[in-house]
């Protein structure tokens, strides 16, 4: 059966269209549109790519080309309710960032880039988060976690996986 269910909701379309007057052409809306979809769905499935392309008057391949370049938007399945980026660049690595990444993954029972089975938490290595004054650090949703220790990292995983979760 062919499904006609649309991925982009009228709210998402309205959010995208609200940005249109900012740019002289619609292609420039590509990245803002992908962010809006990803903020709502925590991923950007291929169907959404096609719909974004239709909305912006582009070929789906053009949108997919841009999307795939950034390696930022998951496409197969949504990322966890909390998406955490653990910094592994030089300033954090010097203060134990890589060990923190290993520790968080171990505590969550996943590999880097993996999502816990309950869908609560995705952990990804990140390049410099620009918070080297608080190394080692992690960005989880919109929250910067500073000066991480094994204890605070474990507490973070527990909170993220608790029924209440972490508000993003």
């Amino acid at each position, binding site marked *: 059966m062919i499904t006609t269910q649309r991925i982009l909701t009228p709210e998402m379309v309205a959010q995208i269209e609200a940005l249109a007057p900012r740019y*002289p052409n619609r292609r*420039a809306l590509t*990245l803002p549109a992908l962010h809006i979809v990803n903020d709502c769905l925590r991923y950007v499935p291929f169907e959404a790519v096609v719909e974004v392309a239709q909305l912006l008057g582009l070929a789906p391949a053009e949108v997919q080309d*841009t999307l795939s370049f950034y390696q930022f938007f998951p496409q197969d399945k949504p990322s966890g309710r909390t998406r955490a980026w653990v910094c592994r*660049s*030089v300033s954090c690595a010097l203060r134990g960032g890589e060990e923190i990444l290993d520790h968080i993954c171990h505590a969550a029972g996943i590999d880097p880039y993996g999502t816990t089975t309950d869908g609560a938490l995705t952990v990804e290595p990140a390049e410099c988060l620009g918070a080297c*004054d608080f190394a080692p650090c992690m960005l989880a949703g919109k929250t910067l976690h500073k000066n991480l220790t094994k204890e605070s990292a474990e507490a973070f995983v527990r909170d993220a996986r608790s029924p209440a979760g972490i508000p993003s």
Partner: protein
Amino acid sequence: MTTFQPVLLEAVGVAGSHTLASYRSRGGYAPLERMLKEKQPVDVIELVKSSGLRGRGGAGFPTGLKWTFLPKDHPGPIYLCINADESEPGTFNNRILMEDDPHQVIEGIILSAYATRATTAYLYLRYEYPQCWDRLQGAIDEAYAAGLLGKNIQGSGFSLDLYLHRGAAAYICGEETGLIESLEGKRAWPRIKPPFPAIEGLFRKPTVVNNIETMACVAQIARRGVEWFRSIGVPSDPNNPRDPGSYGPKLYCLSGHVERPGCYEAPLGITARQLIDGQGGGVWKGRKAKAVIPGGISMGLMTEAELDTPLDFAGPGKVGCLGLGTAAVVVIDETVSIVDFLHNSCRFFAHESCGQCTPCREGTAWSLRMLERIRAGKGRLKDLDLLAEIGNTMGMMPGSTICGLADGAAWPIKNAIKKFRGEFEDYIKRTNPSGWMVTDPVPALPIVGAH
């Protein structure tokens, strides 16, 4: 040394410093209002030119001179892009400016737009700075409500719209033409230059791309004047007519193995040792520094003996580093293996190479694979020559790539191999006692993922 009174960071730590009321109470926006009334755009360009301000994003190009490259009498639109894709490892000065004093940045943006006759400005903010996004959006809303942005600003007839544009976690978007391509909705592949953005940039129109700290400096030059700005820093070398000097205050980001990591404002030309021992409280745990990154990882490495190098635009180059870069000083203490450091650096650049130019795409990935092999105890002395060869052949300077990312990848390799060759040789001989002398080709290793 007398303590330097911070100017750009004046408001850091002050409660409510991000609000319009706080910025106004510190004298903010008054210079803008005066300039809009009394000065022509060309006067503002002249002001910034005579101040000697050089771009704070990394390349150090004179800001006023960059503005003069715009075509005269262009029917428009002219665009101003603000580069807040601060992704160079070790760098966070722009984050602090945006979080704690966004109006200082916005005043600089309005002045710069007025000077360049831009009527639309896009602030390209990296995804990793959600708090900056909220603070900037709040400040922009306040500025619109106060008639500082929008149509006919303060009755001057000058109009400016300022929009935030969110990046998606790619280092290459900090390269100015990569940023432009990304803003246009494409993959962020840097463009071949010429044409330079001033002639054909965003949406094929004349465009200026400036850094956040540069904007803050413009606001302070308008407030405090050229004489003040030129009284700080290092004057141009009288024996080198091409040296534009290093004037003004600079935000130095200090991180890694220091007691007090943080962002410190100091006159350009402070030495790495003064910064580490003074503001930074010394190398942590009473240890000694093995190496120090002078300005973001792509600038290479200074040894302990080179720490008295002044951190101005000309200083780090004198000890074989690429330059001042973003002035992000990262201290690496004596317990760190330089092999591990170089592996971290190579992994970063292999991940962040955009893949457009073959020497960079292959060179960064190849150097990472070699470092992984060395760390796995299968290194050979020949690898060091190969690494040095990769370092010498990829980049804009050898002329094999479009942008400077590969030069940034090459410098840590070249500096590490040259300045710490003995440590590499010892490591390889120790970890691969039976094979370090082999020179046969090695089997291919798995391809690493790249961006």
